[in-house]
């Protein structure tokens, strides 16, 4: 079978820094090609070159046998090379059909044929096996998964023969991932070749026929999926084994007295929360999407406060009714969504690092300003200067700035919600190490995470949520199966440790 898209020996640098060093890969019609590597390995750059967002410095890209060099995404789209980016290109206030045919609205007698447009959209959706999306529904009324389907439908409307997907499951709930799998299989049957970029090994093995591994911009391997197992894949990606990821507790770390106690806590989203957090302890919160993980973090931090139950900090009863209250009491929350909730993207590293101090403890600003450079360098943030805008930092460095912002407040309790989402392995290890250091200093840490290896590898105790309630409390080193069965509500409560 001949390749529909073949990339050979592609090089690309930005400002003299090479990000792709002679990468090659071939996509076969009707197959799914997994592209995997750490952040910064060059996956997105390669994808954007294929999509016409970036132009390559050298090398060739052939589509359907002919050499191509797209300079605009639309040009690639029209030729049949479509891309579903992580950030959707949709107009939230327009209908599904209007989005699918934007710029190519079908006309009848010179006027836009709204009915025909809706009908055609329904046909395209049906080809993907989707019957629950109304072509006339407003995009903003759809779930993220449905919006993604609209993007794929748009790609299909261009008769795409190659579709690249960048982390398509990043924002999807588990049952929605199944839906995406179904759509990908339909596309495969139509002979569409799919370039699938993902961090999640399970998906890569579930879906892909061929797996290409990139590391530091270079091609490591491009092999049939059947020749690989997860351990081997990780080894190729990071050049080290998965155990080395999670640092051991530092010597001298002691489980101290109870720092935070929640008794019978509840609000609209969670209920019956009994939780104790000791000084020097890392407690992992696991659970499925929608189980109330983030809501628990937000309740403790006062963003969406508890309306029932009591809370104690170091033995004293507290009422945390707002984030400001939480910060004053020594609680920090590193939020799930760094860009929307953690950083002022257009402001400098220094301003971001001082954000909380200036807002809540203005009298400490001067002292904090002296400390910030030290905190940043201890976190190994790489940046050009304190006045650099944080939007120009990598995801890992942005997350470190968020951490620095909170460390400057000397918190007693630190809540981390998905602390390593979308950051590279090196930065992940830095975050884990920092957590261990904080624990050694007697800080109580609550880590909310959807990545089971992380929860299991870092936690002294694992609290599992299911449908807004605590369904189990597990020992460190529990198996992924034990956590999952508690999270899905299928496990017996016999595993509760107490």
């Amino acid at each position, binding site marked *: 079978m001949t390749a529909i898209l073949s990339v050979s020996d592609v090089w690309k640098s930005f400002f003299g820094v090479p990000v792709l060093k002679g990468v090659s890969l071939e996509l076969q019609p009707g197959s799914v090609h997994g592209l995997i590597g750490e952040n910064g390995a060059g996956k997105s750059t390669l994808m954007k070159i294929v999509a016409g967002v970036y132009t390559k410095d050298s090398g060739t890209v052939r589509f359907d046998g002919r050499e191509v060099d797209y300079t605009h995404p639309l040009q690639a789209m029209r030729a049949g090379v479509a891309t579903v980016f992580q950030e959707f*290109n949709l*107009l939230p206030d327009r209908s599904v059909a209007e989005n699918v045919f934007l*710029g*190519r609205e079908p006309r009848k007698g010179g006027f836009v044929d709204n009915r025909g447009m809706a009908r055609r959209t329904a046909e395209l959706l049906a080809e993907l096996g989707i019957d629950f999306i109304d072509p006339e529904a407003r995009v903003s009324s759809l779930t993220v998964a449905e919006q993604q389907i609209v993007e794929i439908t748009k790609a299909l409307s261009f008769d795409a023969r190659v579709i690249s997907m960048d982390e398509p499951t990043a924002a999807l709930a588990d049952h929605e991932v199944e839906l995406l799998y179904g759509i990908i299989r339909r596309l495969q049957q139509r002979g569409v070749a799919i370039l699938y970029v993902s961090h999640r090994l399970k998906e890569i093995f579930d879906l892909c026929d061929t797996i290409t591994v990139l590391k530091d911009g270079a091609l490591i391997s491009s092999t049939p999926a059947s020749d690989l197992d997860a351990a081997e894949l990780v080894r190729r990606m990071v050049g080290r084994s998965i155990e080395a990821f999670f640092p051991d507790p530092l010597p001298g770390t002691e489980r101290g007295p109870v720092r935070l106690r929640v008794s019978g806590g509840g609000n609209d989203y969670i209920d019956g929360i009994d939780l104790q957090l000791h000084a020097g302890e890392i407690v992992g919160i696991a659970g499925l999407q929608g189980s109330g993980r983030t809501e628990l973090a937000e309740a403790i931090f006062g963003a969406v406060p508890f309306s029932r139950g009591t809370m104690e900090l170091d033995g004293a009863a507290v009422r945390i009714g707002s984030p400001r209250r939480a910060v004053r009491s020594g609680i920090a929350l590193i939020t799930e969504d760094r860009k929307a909730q953690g950083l002022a993207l257009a402001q400098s590293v220094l301003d971001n690092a001082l954000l909380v101090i200036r807002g809540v403890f203005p009298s400490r600003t001067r002292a904090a300003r002296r400390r910030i450079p030290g905190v940043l360098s201890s976190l190994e943030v790489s940046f050009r200067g304190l006045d650099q805008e944080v939007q120009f930092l990598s995801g890992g460095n942005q997350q470190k700035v968020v951490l620095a912002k909170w460390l400057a407040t000397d918190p007693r309790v630190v809540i981390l919600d998905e602390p390593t989402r979308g950051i590279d392995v090196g930065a992940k290890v830095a975050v884990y190490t920092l957590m261990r250091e904080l624990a050694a200093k007697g800080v109580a840490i609550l880590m909310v995470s959807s990545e089971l290896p992380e929860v299991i590898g870092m936690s002294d105790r694992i609290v599992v949520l299911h449908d807004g309630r605590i369904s189990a409390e597990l020992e460190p080193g529990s198996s992924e199966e034990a956590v999952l069965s508690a999270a899905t509500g299928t496990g017996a409560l016999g595993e509760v440790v107490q």
Partner: protein
Amino acid sequence: MTATAAPARRRRIRLDSTVIVYLALIGVIIVGAILVATVGRNFFSLGNIRDILTGMSVLGFVAIGQTLVILVGSLDLSVPYVISLSSLMAATTMAGQPGNIAAGVLVALLVALVIGTINGLIVTGLKVNGFIATLGTGLIISGYLSTTYQGSTGSVPAQFQFIGATGIGPVPISTIIMLALATVVFLFLRKTRTGHHIYAVGGSLGVARLSGLRTATPIIVAHAICSVTAALAGLLLASRLGVGTPTVGSQGGYDLLSIAAVVLGGTLLAGGRGSIWGTIGGVAIFAVLDSVMSVLQVNPFLKDVVRGIVIVAAVAIYTGRVVLERRARFSTKEVRR
């Protein structure tokens, strides 16, 4: 063992904004009718209805154009001066001669078309924010008006004055023309590519560009139409007054009033969402308020206070209306706040 956890879906509660506008209009009419009845007058008398509809027409023309400009993500502050200019152009060209009516109308509309196109070109070509661009062109026109005309000038023949003065039953001709124009613009937005692209460009310039649209076209078209509808308002004022007046537009405060009517009608000030019929509803609310307040002989300063409260309250309601609500899993009854 299929314990599939129901996903905690985030739900969006959204009533169509045009529906809300008309519900608000009905509310205003009911309250207004009661208030008017307390002073022994009939809100629904033919004379009063004619007054309200007459009050709608001038602002209606301006607001229809302003809707397009706001939908595309811009603003037009030059409308009052275009109104004055077109009233003068028409009145001086006509100079009391019935044979010159067509020429006068044409000159006024063409001049407006040129001004609107220039506004659009400044916004798209020079990348000047619409607010500033039209503030600038408005000032330029205003300067021209005050140096060239000392007061009311020209004269409009009786046949042209007829348009502003008659009606079919209680419905003035001018209001019928305004509603016909609203229908045409409604169809333009719904049935033409440029109409669709006005929403697209206002919704997200980036998405529009990546979808291959010529993003300048909808912006220029919106500005051009806006100036032309402002000129129609100017023609109507000339017809009513019988002369062209250099201050008729700015005295009416049509720049901010038209923006307020558009926003009151549920169109997003940032662009991309809204409708012509919402705007007409917003204009009607203002007209009813004005009518009720003049029947009640409310102090003119208080009138502005009421208008201001209505605008702020409306926008507050719209903002609160689009609630991204998480489904409550547990009872909310014992929530303490």
